[in-house]
C-alpha cells in the first residue's frame, strides 16, 4: 500500500469525456507482467494514446499539449471490469492525483483510496458542464479541499460537496494506511480466531 497524503489540490484538468471506461482500457492486460508498482504511467490508456505503428495518436487528449494537470475528468462509470490495481497505479504514476466522474466501479474506488488517488463523484449534470468548460477553456482551474470535502470550479466559484468515507478521509489527510491500523490490532484478530473456531 502507498502512504500518500492528500489535503488541498488546485490544478487544471484533463478531460476524457468517455463512458464505461474499463480497467483494460486504462492499462491493457498485456502490460501487467511487471512486479513493481512503478512505471505503469507509460502505458496509461495505451491503445488510445498510441497508434498501431507505435506513434503517438495526436487525436488523444493526453497527446494534446493544450490540456494538462493533476485532475482527470472522465465520463460516467469509470474503472469497471477487472480488479487490477495496476489501473490506479498507471493513473497515479502518470501524475494524476484526483479523478472526477459521476460514477465509479466499486473495486476501482477502493483501489484509488488505497493509493492516494482521490475519486470524486459529482452529478451527471455538473460533470457534463465541467467537461464543456475545460474543453472550451483548458486553463480552467479546480480546487479540491479534502478536509471540507469540496470541489470548486475556480473561474465560476461554483462549489459542491463530495462524499467520502470518514475513515478513508482521515487516512488520506494523515497519510496513514490500513495495514498499520490492522497490524495494531493483531491481538484482537488472534482472539477472534480463538473464540470463533475459524475454518482451518
Amino acid at each position, binding site marked *: *500500500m502507498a502512504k500518500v497524503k492528500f489535503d488541498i489540490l488546485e490544478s487544471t484538468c484533463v478531460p476524457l469525456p468517455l463512458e464505461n471506461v474499463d480497467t483494460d482500457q486504462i492499462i491493457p492486460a498485456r502490460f501487467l507482467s511487471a512486479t513493481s508498482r512503478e512505471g505503469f504511467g507509460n502505458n496509461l490508456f495505451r491503445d488510445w494514446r498510441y497508434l498501431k505503428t507505435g506513434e503517438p495518436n495526436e487525436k488523444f487528449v493526453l497527446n494534446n499539449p493544450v490540456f494538462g494537470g493533476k485532475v482527470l475528468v472522465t465520463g460516467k462509470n469509470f474503472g469497471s471490469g*477487472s480488479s*487490477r490495481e495496476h489501473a490506479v497505479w498507471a493513473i497515479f504514476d502518470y501524475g494524476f492525483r484526483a479523478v472526477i466522474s459521476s460514477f465509479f466501479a466499486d473495486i476501482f474506488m477502493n483501489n484509488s483510496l488505497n493509493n492516494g488517488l482521490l475519486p470524486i463523484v459529482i452529478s451527471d449534470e455538473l460533470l457534463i458542464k465541467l467537461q464543456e468548460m475545460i474543453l472550451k477553456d483548458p486553463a480552467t482551474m479546480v480546487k479540491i479541499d479534502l478536509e471540507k470535502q469540496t470541489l470548486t470550479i475556480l473561474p465560476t466559484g461554483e462549489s459542491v460537496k463530495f462524499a467520502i468515507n470518514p475513515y478513508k478521509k482521515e487516512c488520506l489527510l494523515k497519510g496513514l494506511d*490500513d495495514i498499520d491500523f*490492522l497490524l495494531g490490532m493483531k491481538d484482537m*484478530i488472534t482472539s477472534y480466531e480463538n473464540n470463533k473456531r475459524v475454518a482451518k
Partner: protein
Amino acid sequence: MKSKTLFDKIWDGHVVRSIEAGPDVLYIDRHYIHEVTSPQAFNGLKERGIPVFRPDKTLATADHNIPTKDQHLEIKDALSRNQVEKLSENCSKYGIELFGLNHSRNGIVHVIGPELGYTLPGMTIVCGDSHTSTHGAFGTIAFGIGTSEVEMVLATQCIMQPKPKKMRIAINGTLKKGVTSKDIIMYIISEISTGGGTGYFVEFSGSAIIALSMEARMTICNMSIEMGARGGLIAPDETTFSYLRKLPEIRGVKDLESSINEWKNLKSDSDAIFDRELEFDAADIKPMITYGTNPGMGMAIDASIPMPADKPGESSSSYLKSLDYMGLKPGMKLLGHPVDFVFIGSCTNGRIEDFRAFAQIIRGRQKASNIQALIVPGSKRVEEQMVAEGLIEIFKNAGFEVRQPGLLLLSGNE
C-alpha cells in the same frame, strides 16, 4: 432475534471489529493468490519486514500470465517468466502452498478452489481477481480485491470493507430447452445493465436457481460482477452437499457430515429484508447473444439489436459508438451472421460440465474451415476428466485446437 439474510449471517460472523462511521474489519477464511496481482503485495511485506500472518489459509496458483501450450518449456516472454518465478519464490519464502505451472493440480484459481475442496459454505474468500465471486455458488461471501488489499490480507488475514447493500434476484419457473445458466445471468444483466448491481451483494434464489448444478451456479455467481455487484451467492443445499461429498479431499474438515448439518442453517430467514428485490420468470429467458463491447449489450439470440432509446443503462452516443466499433446497427438481427472465432474456457465456462455439453453438440461434426476454434480446460483435473471421457478426441476430430489449462486471452503470452 432480528431476522437476517444469508449474506448478513456470514458477514456478521466474520466481523472482528466495526469502526464507527468506517469500514468493518472482516476476517478472511481463504485467500487465493496468483502471479499477476500478488508480487507488489509481497514487496510491501518485505519493505515492512513482516511475515505472512496465516500462510495456511492462503492458496496460490499460476493461471493468468502463463502460456496454454508447451507448458513444459520455459516461458518465452521474460517479464511473464519473471512474474511466475517471483510467485514460486514468494510462496516458498513465506510457506504458502503453490499449485504452480506443471503441478498436477494447477488450474484457474476459481476452478481449483472448489475442486480441491478449499471453497466451503459459510466462508469469506478473497482473491486479487474480480471473478472471485464464483465461489459464492457454495454459499460463501467471495469477492475480488486490489493488490493493496492482497497485502492487507497477507499481513493480517483481515480486510477493511464497508458492508454492501443486499439484493435478492429470484428466478422462478422452468428454463426452456437450450437455456443455460450463462443465459440466465446474461439476461439479468441485459435487463438491469452493467451498473444495476453496483453497491450490492446479490443472493440468487428461486426454483430455476435451485435446479442448477454446482458448475452452473458458479457461472452465475462468476458473472454477477458484470452487473456491477460486489459479488453473488446462492444458499447451500443438497446439490452443494452432494458435490462436496464427491470430492477426493475437503480441506480442514474432519467430519464432513457434521459440517453439512451446520451448513444447512446457511440460508436467509423467511422474513429477512433485502434493500432491493427482483424477480424474473425462467420461461422468459431465451439463449442469449451479445452484440457490443460490454456485457450489458446482450439479447435473445433471435431478437434484433435494440434502438438506443430502449437501452436505459447506456447513453445514446456511447451505445452507437460501440455498435459502430462492432460493425453493427440498431435493428439488425445476428442470426445468419457469420462466426469468426469460437472459444470455450476461462473461469466462467472452463469446467467439465461446459465441455460435456459442448461435446454433445459437436460430436461427429466438423467446424467450418474459416473459423478458429479453441478449447481451454480450466484446470489439470478438468483436462484429465476430458481425456478419460473421450471429450478431447471429439473436439480434435471436429477440428478444434485443444490447449493446456490457463486463462488464455488474458495474458501477453498468446
